[in-house]
């Protein structure tokens, strides 16, 4: 079944640790996205990718980095986690091409808490 997966679902970690949030999709989509969601609900685009070896910064500045070595995999890394990174992180994917409407499919999210 085509889907989008995120692991871990919940992560509690100490300040200064390096973490990687995993995102994988079996939708066959070229475009993938990372959003950061505040406790007040608003979604902020922090990274996106049009395909393999293509990554761009989003609207909200983030200290995280991403990579896209395989079409189906779009991990997000924080080299040194801080309490200000505490948030929910949502991964999404969509089709590309001239007929794309940018309809996005979302994973279940990772709730990160940095102590």
């Amino acid at each position, binding site marked *: 079944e085509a889907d989008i997966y995120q692991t871990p679902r919940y992560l509690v970690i100490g300040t200064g640790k390096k973490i990687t949030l995993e995102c994988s999709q079996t939708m066959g989509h070229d475009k993938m996205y990372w959003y950061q969601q505040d406790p007040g609900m608003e*979604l902020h685009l922090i990274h996106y990718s049009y395909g393999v070896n293509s990554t761009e910064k989003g609207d909200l500045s983030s200290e995280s980095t991403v990579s896209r070595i395989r079409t189906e995999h779009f991990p997000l890394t924080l080299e040194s986690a801080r309490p200000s990174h505490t948030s929910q992180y949502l991964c999404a994917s969509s089709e590309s091409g001239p007929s*794309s409407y*940018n309809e996005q499919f979302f994973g*279940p*999210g990772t709730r990160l808490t940095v102590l």
Partner: protein
Amino acid sequence: AQSVTQLDSQVPVFEEAPVELRCNYSSSVSVYLFWYVQYPNQGLQLLLKYLSGSTLVKGINGFEAEFNKSQTSFHLRKPSVHISDTAEYFCAVSDRGRRALTFGSGTRLQVQP
């Protein structure tokens, strides 16, 4: 530039009552419009979308929305809500060629018994 405004941050409503969640957008080109729902501790799920054609679109769970080009609105409605509809609802807009959706700030629907 595109923008989306969801006028109500919270909407409390009693079970079996009708509800309308408001969404207005600004864009200089033809747009595609979406409503997503987010249940606690989950990702976003597509409720419905307007791409073209009929301005009244029906979605899952009994929701519908009407695209009004002159008022640049895409309000979401349900004639009778259930406790299980309690969630956050996001309106989003896109046009062909944009890199991503533009989301509104969300509306929390609270259905009370």
